[in-house]
């Protein structure tokens, strides 16, 4: 237990994130957009570890970390307590976690929170692997990515599975709002946080957060890489309201996926294979077509 900082930001510097960490940037954008009247619950993962080593904390809002898979359940308890105290109209609740903590081990707690209709915004910081434990594959790791548990080898080209459609899975709970955002587009991201928090009930926001260490690229490239993911159609920015797709971030002239892939060590084993790159181009093309991104 500790805190008290003096800064305009709700998430302040001094933490131990790697240079170029997309998640640190995204977290600040989220809680700054949310404002002071916010309580955050946090899953175990990089964000929690680098921001709250006792006796220090980077959070300028009330913040609680309990365990890895229960951020949404702790958020449900916080929201219920605020409801009991008659403070739910004044205070916003954000539950947050990484892609592994959300889409794998925490999916049950997240589904429960959404289904019960708690007035909570769940934010998933998607850096596409279990980074805190050393870059292991999660169900949000993209096709072909090299992680320590989906390594390429003589009979493997890296992660053999497609990303789990988590925004849709959440949306299928018929919640008021389920969307994706990217740290490469901060204004769009903050607009989505504000929009989500203006709605009562359960909301979900998945944010693409490049990770220099895990994806193996120069720290200065975080924003460029984030934008290329969106610009190529590999990371569609979409918004669902009550189960219906209501808005997409348009990319009139999609970039070839190769531009995105070639900057990152996690795809190095396939960038020189036309056949493998073509498979990923197909994923992007399918997104562009399905969500009508053009």
């Amino acid at each position, binding site marked *: *237990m*500790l*805190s*008290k900082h003096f800064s305009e930001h709700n998430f302040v510097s001094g933490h131990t994130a790697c240079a170029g960490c997309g998640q640190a940037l995204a977290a600040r954008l989220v809680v700054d957009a949310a404002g*002071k*009247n*916010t*309580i955050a*619950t*946090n899953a175990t993962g990089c964000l*929690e*570890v680098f921001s*709250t*080593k*006792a*006796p220090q*904390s980077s*959070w*300028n*809002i*009330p*913040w*609680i*970390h*309990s*365990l890895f*898979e*229960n951020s*949404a*359940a*702790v*958020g*449900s*308890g*916080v*929201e*219920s*307590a*605020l*409801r*009991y*105290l008659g403070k739910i109209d*004044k*205070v916003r609740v954000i539950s947050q976690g990484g892609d592994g903590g959300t889409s794998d081990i925490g999916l*049950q*707690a997240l*589904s*429960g929170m959404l*289904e*019960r209709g708690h007035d909570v915004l769940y934010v998933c910081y998607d850096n596409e692997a279990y980074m805190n434990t050393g870059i292991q594959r999660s169900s949000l790791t993209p096709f072909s990515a090299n992680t320590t548990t989906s390594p390429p080898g003589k009979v493997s080209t890296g992660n053999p599975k497609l990303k789990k459609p988590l925004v849709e899975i959440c949306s299928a709970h018929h919640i008021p709002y389920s969307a994706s955002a990217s740290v490469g587009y901060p204004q769009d991201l903050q607009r989505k946080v504000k929009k989500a928090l203006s709605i009562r009930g359960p909301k979900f926001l998945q944010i693409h957060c490049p990770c220099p260490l895990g994806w193996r690229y120069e720290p200065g490239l975080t924003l460029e890489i984030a934008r290329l993911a969106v610009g190529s159609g590999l990371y569609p920015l979409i918004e669902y309201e009550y189960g219906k797709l209501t808005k997409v971030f348009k990319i009139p002239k999609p970039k070839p996926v190769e531009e995105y892939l070639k900057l990152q060590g996690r795809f190095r084993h396939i960038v020189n294979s036309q056949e493998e790159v073509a498979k990923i181009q197909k994923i992007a093309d399918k997104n562009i077509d399905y969500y009508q991104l053009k």
Partner: protein
Amino acid sequence: MKKFLEGSQAVAKAVKLAKPGVISAYPITPQTHIVEGLAQFVADGELKSEFVNVESEHSAASAVLGAEACGVRSFTATSSQGLILMSEVLFNIAGMRLPVMLVCANRALSAPINIWNDHQDSIALRDSGWIQFYAENHQEVVDFILQGYKIGENPKIMLPVMVCMDGYILTHGMEVVDIPSQEQVDKFLPPYNPPYKLDIDNPLSLGLLGDPTVYMETRYAIQDTLNNDVLKLIPQVSSEFESIFGRRTLKLVETYKTEDAEVILVAMGSVAGTIKDVIDEERSKGKKVGLLKIVTYRPFPKEEVFNILKQASRVGVIEKAISLGSDGPLYTEISALFSGEKNSPQISGFIAGLGGRDITEKTIQTVIELVKGKKTSCIFMDLNKELLWEDFRVI
């Protein structure tokens, strides 16, 4: 007011009197009647709580953790598999110093799956930092809940409390129980006002990363609170309770005819009732037998246990749990108290009643006979020898 109630109903009424702001639980036999009772109170508007119907026990424990962190009194209940599923969160709750109240309707652990009573579930959580009380009857359960809130929420303590009641025997059994009035409870139990909480006017960070430079101190602090503050506070709270409610039920240990006893049996929970009956019989035959009932198992009241047992020549520990590959946990702990002592009684250990097997008067009489013989560390009582063939290992 005295009422003839099912144990679970008595629990629901006691919890209602404590006015928790958030209740969260998940169905599991034999706990379920407790939360069903509470759900009905909420549905009828008799209890103004948020009742969170979670999707698992892990989330039930997480939800009450979140509520407590906001400074709101909470309640949860579970049994067996549910408690074990919660266990990750339960260790976490204690480490975060949040005074959650949990009633454990004690039930055996799978496999084989078995819905009947023993203590293996809550004993498995003995190292978690929770305060644990074991109740003999309905009245104790009711009283322990009210006093448990007061002890756990004391700003000097801030630790969670588990009230353990034997599944079916207490949860489903009917007994006369005195349910206090709301005025009495309000006088005894002040509103929860924790020294720290999640509050937008005073933003704190809770649940930080504790590296090797700070972790041990947090563990020491819990140990210190349990072994010094909680052990001292229990008798004080008990006296205060007595002055308002007219009875003293919460104790560290309870003794029954131990003053001159040569043989003292040790046990926890509802089996104490059966043991007392057997002791009366033995006494009528002139045999000096007594019972030491452990009420507060965590923190373990070492001094009291030692001082009572040291006067006996023989001690028999009867327990409904086993540390597989070792001995009964309570036996091990009691033996350790006397290690190196010159005038130690001879202490023997007995495992009984696992998975709901009846502990009869005959069982207790046999234990008394065995205690008088050679020292044994871990005898399983009432085994059916016919089922010990290899074919029966897997059922």
